[in-house]
């Protein structure tokens, strides 16, 4: 069919929605769906689930680079065909899981995965793969990369991924702008801009829907203005918190700055309801340079926080539980990070983050 014909008779989409998981699920999981009784972890990277039917399955979990070329995916498929009856699944943190119903396959599967370059781990009290965003590879508003930051972090945390030596599970995320698509985590690495947007007034009128841009600003620092005779926008730089919210709807308000867009580190976010209620993460360091290709300054701080947590936290304490026990002064003392005035909240609801008590740990 020629291109003109194709355009004349376009194919209507089949609006089929979410596929049925049962069509793709490992048969042992289909057979025992809803009938699992318990699980344990025979070794890091391996889960054993026991069904009320008496069936058992072993899951072998391995790390991936998330952004995968088709050759890598096919290699993983070859391994699944050889050991796991041609089925795999992925976790929310881009780990791949192979399910086997025969215990004898576990060791050779692990050996094959590791020989092929996929670390086995990410279970229990390990540091799992970093949840991350798109960065320079694909995002339209990134101040930094994502996959590269994560690669450099996971190289450093490789042994922590493969072992279960942390007090509780550790979840990490990175985000390449302050929207923070990476999400809440025990430790999060997020860009923190430090200068107001640089506005190209020649372009604003043609590119940006000005009232919408004004409405985006969380601190009402943007107002319409006539600049050099052209309708544009101006920013009250005293009010501006440099969040970058104006940049996506108005690209001429450039917020990304190779020198002045820095990186901040946050700790103590958790989504689980276990023990204390879910918690937001707290900023504990900022001003770190955006330093590709391996971001050594960021990795140094992340490594330092993790080492301190690993030695100091008690069993089952997530990062948030640990800090709740030892208190923030001791967190900063033990990690050697500097508590600055920028870490005292002044956003709405800030008073809830101040200490309204005499509770002090000496």
């Amino acid at each position: 069919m020629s291109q003109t014909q194709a355009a004349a008779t376009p194919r209507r989409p089949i609006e089929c929605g979410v596929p049925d998981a049962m069509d793709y699920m490992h048969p042992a999981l289909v057979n025992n769906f809803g009938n699992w009784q318990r699980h344990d972890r025979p070794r890091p990277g391996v889960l054993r689930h026991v069904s009320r039917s008496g069936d058992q399955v072993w899951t072998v979990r391995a790390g991936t680079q998330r952004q995968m070329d088709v050759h890598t995916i096919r290699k993983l498929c070859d391994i699944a065909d050889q050991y796991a009856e041609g089925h795999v699944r992925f976790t929310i943190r881009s780990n791949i899981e192979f399910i086997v119903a025969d215990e004898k396959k576990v060791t050779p599967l692990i050996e094959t995965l590791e020989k092929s370059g996929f670390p086995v781990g990410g279970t229990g009290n390990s540091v799992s793969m970093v949840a991350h965003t798109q960065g320079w590879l694909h995002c339209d508003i990134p101040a930094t990369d994502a996959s590269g930051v994560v690669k450099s972090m996971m190289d450093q945390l490789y042994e922590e991924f493969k072992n279960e030596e942390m007090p509780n599970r550790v979840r990490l995320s990175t985000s390449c702008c302050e929207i923070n698509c990476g999400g809440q985590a025990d430790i999060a690495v997020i860009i923190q801009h430090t200068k107001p947007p640089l506005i190209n007034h020649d372009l604003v009128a043609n590119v940006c829907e000005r009232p919408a841009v004004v409405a985006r600003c969380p601190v009402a620092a943007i107002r319409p203005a006539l600049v050099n005779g052209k309708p544009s926008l101006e920013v009250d730089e005293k009010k501006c918190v440099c969040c970058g919210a104006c940049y996506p709807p108005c690209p001429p308000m450039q917020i990304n700055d190779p020198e002045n867009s820095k990186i901040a580190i946050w700790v103590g976010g958790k989504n689980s309801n276990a023990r204390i209620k879910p918690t937001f993460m707290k900023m504990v360091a900022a001003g770190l340079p955006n330093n590709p290709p391996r971001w050594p300054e960021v990795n140094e701080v992340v490594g330092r926080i993790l080492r301190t947590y690993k030695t100091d936290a008690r069993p089952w304490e997530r990062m948030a539980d640990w800090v709740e026990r030892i208190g923030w002064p001791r967190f900063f003392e033990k990690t050697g990070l500097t508590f600055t005035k920028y870490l005292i909240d002044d956003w709405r609801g800030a008073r809830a983050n101040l200490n309204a008590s005499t509770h002090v740990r000496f």
Partner: protein
Amino acid sequence: MAKKMHETPHLDQLENGPWPSFVTGLKRLAKDKDYVVDVLGQLETSYKTRKGYWKGGTVSVFGYGGGVIPRFTELKDAEGKPVYGDAAEFHTLRVMPPPGMHYSTDILRKLCDIWERHGSGLIALHGQSGDIMFQGCTTENVQKAWDEINVLGFDLGGAGPAVRTSMSCVGAARCEQSCYNEAAAHRVVINSFLDEIHRPALPYKFKFKFSGCPNDCMNSIQRSDMAVIGTWRDNIQTDEELARAWFTKHGMNELVNDVVARCPTKAIQLKEAKDLKAGGTVSAVRLSDGHGLEIDNRDCVRCMHCINVMTGALAPGNDRGASILVGGKRTLKIGDLMGTLIVPFMKLDSDEDREKLVDLAQRIIDFFADNALEHERTGEMIERIGLVSFLEGIGIDIDPNMVSQPRTNPYVRVDGWDDEVARINAKAEQAA
């Protein structure tokens, strides 16, 4: 054979170290594709200058308004020509995975073949919303790739001001903590809103996420506008054989410090075996001939901690279902919001139960569509108008489970108090 590679000294350093390298993957693709040679060229430039060079635009498939993320290069030479011309367009197709992200190798290979033919050959498994992201496609090839992906039974996900792709945990497929059929709920809810996914017309994005228990492995409380989180109403179940085995292995220190002391509401107590009493709302289990655990389920908030530590020995009850929370989101614009509980419990056992979930979702989305400001998320709308207005709008009665405590300020008109008490009492009498 593709054209010669550009020098990539920065990216080359991301091939060192033990973790799998996406750069090595891109280089492998670049052996066959000029397209990826130039993608690497532009990415290396970003690493050098610390700037991003993609801008959005408008690209879609026939019949849909969303699901494709268009990217055009802004890295141009003095004459305005793309520096890396073969990668001037780098669009992404967002495709919805099966719930729980299960795949046969057969379907993965077919998807790889399609993407090798029409796209860059780079696939992210998965994006932060849960999509299979087919990354890197020219405008011309988007429709071709989509046509082939669609006939395999896969559909595009959401983008822009639309209902978005969803995620659910492995759940009942392989987890003993699962409190409802996550895959079924995920599929029936999302497939009821395909029009809202494919034709963006909401004030802003709307996300669902489905977690089978309060461990919330899908991070739904903070990452979705409507979170469906499994829970149970009756007593925690116990298994003495597994409890004794746990105690033999872990001992008294771990029992006291890791289980009893970590219960957030002190619902769990260590008792001498002779004092152990089960019955009513109390679960009890022997750990040895001398000791046992007693849990008063009225005080338990279903946090999952003791069940996580002593899995199998302790388990969620039999009367399972889900709690519903609304309004979770990340920073921009008003700051981070966790979801707020609006339904403490609903059954999700049958198709009929799941239809009630769809109905609730429909009411929330309708209210959101009518009342949210442009670019305002559900949680921000609720913050602006107040939870009570929202609940009245969607027809849900208030419940003290919805607050962590009653108000601490007097800034409210209470001249309707008596009427409100009378109305609530009348309703309670009617229900009795």
